[in-house]
């Protein structure tokens, strides 16, 4: 795994502005998440994943993307239960969303990608943190009637990679 720059979770701002930043909306289970588009390297079809024996539960394994091995991370395992998805709601195959923070890349398994949204609502999001919530879930906002949780990719990669570094 590529070396990732360490990011402190506590250093995340209390209220981060989300407007003006293109976001990619993805669905994991029954929940929608937003990822900053500039942090997304590419999107690929979910393919064969080779399990890593000593990896954590949320690391499903590694897969080959463009000649390199990328860890495949289950956001559902990291967050916990996200609720069941509506039957036959996905029109596409499961995707791998490759995000990059520093030098570290991980592939998130998502069930559906809504697309990239350029303009966010003017209403600021609500802090999504709470008891037991991971720090990479920054805030939630409504978009076209759907509750979307903004993810901090750096913290997310740090959480996955930090475990990975600990595992190493």
């Amino acid at each position, binding site marked *: 795994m590529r070396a990732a720059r360490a990011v402190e979770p506590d250093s995340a701002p209390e209220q981060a502005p989300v407007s003006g930043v*293109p976001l990619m909306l993805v669905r994991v289970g029954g929940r929608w998440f937003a990822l900053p588009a500039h942090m997304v390297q590419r*999107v690929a079809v979910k393919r064969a994943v080779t399990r890593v024996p000593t990896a954590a539960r949320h690391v499903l394994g590694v897969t080959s993307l463009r000649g390199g091995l990328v860890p495949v991370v289950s956001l559902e395992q990291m967050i916990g239960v996200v609720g069941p998805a509506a039957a036959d709601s996905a029109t596409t195959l499961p995707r791998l969303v490759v995000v990059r923070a520093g030098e570290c890349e991980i592939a998130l398994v998502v069930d559906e990608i809504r697309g*990239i949204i350029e303009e966010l609502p003017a209403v600021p999001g609500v802090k999504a943190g709470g008891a037991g919530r991971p720090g990479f879930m920054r805030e939630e906002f409504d978009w076209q009637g759907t509750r979307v949780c903004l993810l901090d990719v750096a913290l997310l990669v740090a959480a996955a990679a930090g475990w990975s570094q600990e595992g190493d």
Partner: protein
Amino acid sequence: MSPLALRAKLILAFALVIAFVTICFAGYFLIQQERMASAALVTRATGISGVLAHLVAPAVERDDRLEVSKSLAAVRDHADLRYVVVLKATGEVYQRQSVGTLGPGEELHDNSREERVVQARGGLIHVLVPLFGKDNNHLGTLVAGFSRQSIADAIRASQAAVLGGACVILLIGVGVAWFLALNIARPIRAVAKRLARLSRDLVDSARSQESAGVQQASGIEQTRRTMEAVLSSAQQIAEDSSAVLGNAERTVTGNRGVALRIKDLNSHAEKATEILAAIMQVADRTDLLALNAALEGTKAGEAGRGFTLVAAEMRRLAESVMESVAGIRRLMNDMRAASQVAVQAGQEGVALSEETTRSARDIALETQQQRRATEQVGQSMDDMAATVTDAMARTRQTAANAAELAEAALQLGTLVGSGRSPQPVQVIEQKPLLAGAAGDGNNR
């Protein structure tokens, strides 16, 4: 005139036979009596004439008329002698003597050199005896005539005796005939009575048999009509089953064709599913490419905005395609499920149609066998009806014969003297039993 009884006839017949035999016997007896009396008279006449000629011949040779007369007088008292004439060889009457008066020409004056010639002429027997001398010279002829009255008297006396004997025999014969006729008529009369009783019983039996035959014929006729109705129903069932068989076979053929079409449709659906999978894969890849393109356009900032919009539009198209494909896939799945159900239903329909075909074929076969059996039963009914009709005719004939037999028995009883009045026996009336039973059987 009332007919004579058998007993009287028998007695009369026996009496006639006995009378005939008696008459024949009496006639024969009288004839033999006359013949014997004639022979005895001839014997006496020739004897007397011979003796007299032997006595007279020497006196004639000596020409002693007195001696001749004495010799003739010696036989004058003979009962049958009527005359004696001594003729000389020249035919001259030398001496004669007669008893009573003789008619003209009654005496015979013929010379004869033959010894003892007997001639019957008129009512006398004439004996001619030649007279010879010592030198055996012919002296003349002695002619003696004897009366036949003694023969007639003897016959007359015999006739009375014969008549009396015949009467006695006839009476005895009539008595024997009466006894025999009585012994013959009695068993005949008993047989006649028994025969009459048996004939009446036979007539009664024939009537009962005819009554049973009429009932049997009625039952046969009813059974025959029922069998005709059953035959008609069997024919109708056979026609209906044949129609069902044809429809079932056409249904089997149609269901097999439907199953083949559904199978082809499933094959086409599978191919369409494969094509849809390929389209889905292409659309998914297009969506992925559009997403990455939009991502790159976003990263390019303001310069890549147009590129991002085009990519987003491409992605929407790809998603639209994938949604359409998903909808088509759902429709295909529904159609496949429906076709599976249709295939199963078609197979069940084929199975049911084949079962229906077998059942219809079995029904047709069974109906055909039933029709043949019914026809055989009808033929048997016709044969039985013909047999019953024939038996009825024979029964009537038997009854008629029995009636005639009874009538004959009564007449026989009357003839043998039973004294009973005949009881008439009614002959069964001729009437048709089965209206065209045999004809119907032939027309079937």
